[in-house]
């Protein structure tokens, strides 16, 4: 129902786009997205962070092309090579695997886990938050009851249980982190929905004959997207930290797939002889987490959400 309505509305706008002439005397039409973007661009730190994030994403996507070696290529004759050695910029680890390549591939691991976790978290929290906030009554009480129970349960413990059950593949770790972290986002979505559903334009939509699905998807949901986006941008570094933490204690992505937590754990053993083995993954990890967090800060300011956004 809502789907077809959206489709027709989309078609309507594109149809008459041809009819409407552009007028020079008027300010350019700006959606709230465009406005937020312009505000975002005024924040230098956020822009630089966004560039770094984009770079990291490119590295993650093209990891096999960028990395000089495969992440699991062992060379026992040349293990624990120092940094800046002839063929290995960051040296090799205890199994003779190229550390630079492993760093590049671990970026891919981290971002994949972050992506999977956020997809899961967004889907769960939007569905649950929207239904709870919009329907209210018993549905709200039941769904928020579940959410509260989840909230009371330690997220890390829950993630560990899920990883133990689902296995230590990248996807499973991502799913586990996502399932353990949708709670705050669901509460946020519900809160937004509660605030928006009493707005006059929602009432106006009803007065124009909009059905329940249309109201929920066209009037309420689009107005919650800003805060959701901000939550995602803070959820990404949180997921990266969670994954690194799991890997550090050997519960994250299974070897030989590289991950920052695993690299840091290995580097720990060689802190005195080969400190770069510890420092390199830590620096990369810190840069990634900071960059994503600053993007989140920038977005929060751009959407005028205040401190708790």
């Amino acid at each position, binding site marked *: 129902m809502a789907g077809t309505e959206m489709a027709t509305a989309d078609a309507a706008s594109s149809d008459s786009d041809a009819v409407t002439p552009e007028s020079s005397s008027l300010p350019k039409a700006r959606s709230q997205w465009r406005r937020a973007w312009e505000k975002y661009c005024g924040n230098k730190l956020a822009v630089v962070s966004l560039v770094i994030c984009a770079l990291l994403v490119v590295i993650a996507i093209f990891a096999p092309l960028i990395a000089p070696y495969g992440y699991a290529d062992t060379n026992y004759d040349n293990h624990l090579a120092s940094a800046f050695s002839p063929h290995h910029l960051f040296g090799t680890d205890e199994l003779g695997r190229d550390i630079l390549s492993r760093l590049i591939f671990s970026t891919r691991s981290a971002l994949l886990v972050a992506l999977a976790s956020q997809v899961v978290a967004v889907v769960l929290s939007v569905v649950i938050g929207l239904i709870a906030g919009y329907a209210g009554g018993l549905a709200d009480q039941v769904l928020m009851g579940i959410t509260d129970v989840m909230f009371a349960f330690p997220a890390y413990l829950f993630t560990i249980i899920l990883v133990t059950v689902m296995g230590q593949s990248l996807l499973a770790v991502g799913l586990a982190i996502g399932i353990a972290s949708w709670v705050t986002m669901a509460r946020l979505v519900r809160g937004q929905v509660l605030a928006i559903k009493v707005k006059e334009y929602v009432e*106006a939509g009803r007065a124009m004959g909009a059905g329940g699905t249309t109201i929920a998807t066209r009037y309420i949901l689009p107005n919650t997207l800003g805060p959701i986006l901000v939550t995602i941008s803070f959820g990404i570094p949180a997921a990266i930290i969670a994954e690194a933490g799991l890997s550090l204690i050997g519960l994250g992505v299974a070897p030989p797939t590289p991950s920052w937590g695993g690299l840091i754990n290995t580097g720990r053993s060689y802190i005195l002889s080969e400190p770069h083995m510890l420092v390199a993954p830590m620096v990369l990890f810190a840069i990634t987490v900071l960059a994503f967090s600053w993007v989140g800060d920038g977005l929060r300011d751009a959407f005028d959400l205040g401190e708790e956004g």
Partner: protein
Amino acid sequence: MSAFTDVTEASTTTTTVPGDAPLLAVRDLRVWFDRKRQEPLKAVDGLSYTVDAGRARAIVGESGSGKTVAARAVLGLLPGTSRIVDGEIAFGGRDLRSASPEQLRRIRGREIAMVFQNASEALNPTLTLERQLTEHLLWHRICSRKEAGQRAIQALADVGIPEPAAKLRMYPFQLSGGMRQRAMLAVATVTRPKLLIADEPTTAVDVTVQRQVLDLLQRLKDDGMAIVMITHDLGVARAFCDDVTVMYQGRQVEEGPIRQVIDNPRDAYTRRLLESTLEVGHEH
């Protein structure tokens, strides 16, 4: 209990209108808000009025007199814990009280439209004007997409918005307050509803926009639209409406043709209301 006698007199006068039944007939409407461990709040307690095509009725009263609830009950859009406990709402011969939510949804926007008091809040900030003007035309399958675009431009032009074609691409927050109020009116009337419920359409705007809004409503009325205007301003009601219902604390205290009520108010509250508005009127 003068209120009660007024109601009975009013309903006898309105039912004596010969010929067709009125477009909207509300009879003895009672809307209560349920409250925990308390008597229900009687927001509307025995209201009767009729509106014919091409005529306008003002529902006048102070804040909290139940006038907005009385108007929204017609659309089946009652807030929170309120419900219609008694009365009849007949629209074009159909009983709206027994209509299903789906039937009501089809009537809303297409046959009965509503203009809200605060246009800044009543337009969806994530939709362009074009979307807001065309969406309900498409929901109700009133016309094709192409025609909807044309109608949207026409509707904006009708409410006196300059460069309507370019304005279609704009978002509500890019327009001035007066422009938004008129755009809201365009959204409500683009479907050519038979009945328009205007909730304080002139309260939040300045005098020049107020004039424009009233002129537009007058044109719509001349085209045969029936209008229910909720207002606390008897001056605006007198300038525009044919009949008036005065409400006080949920009850209907006076009803009749606007001239008659203003020139010869029978109820003490109406007199007080008139004094408070006319004083302002004398100043300019």
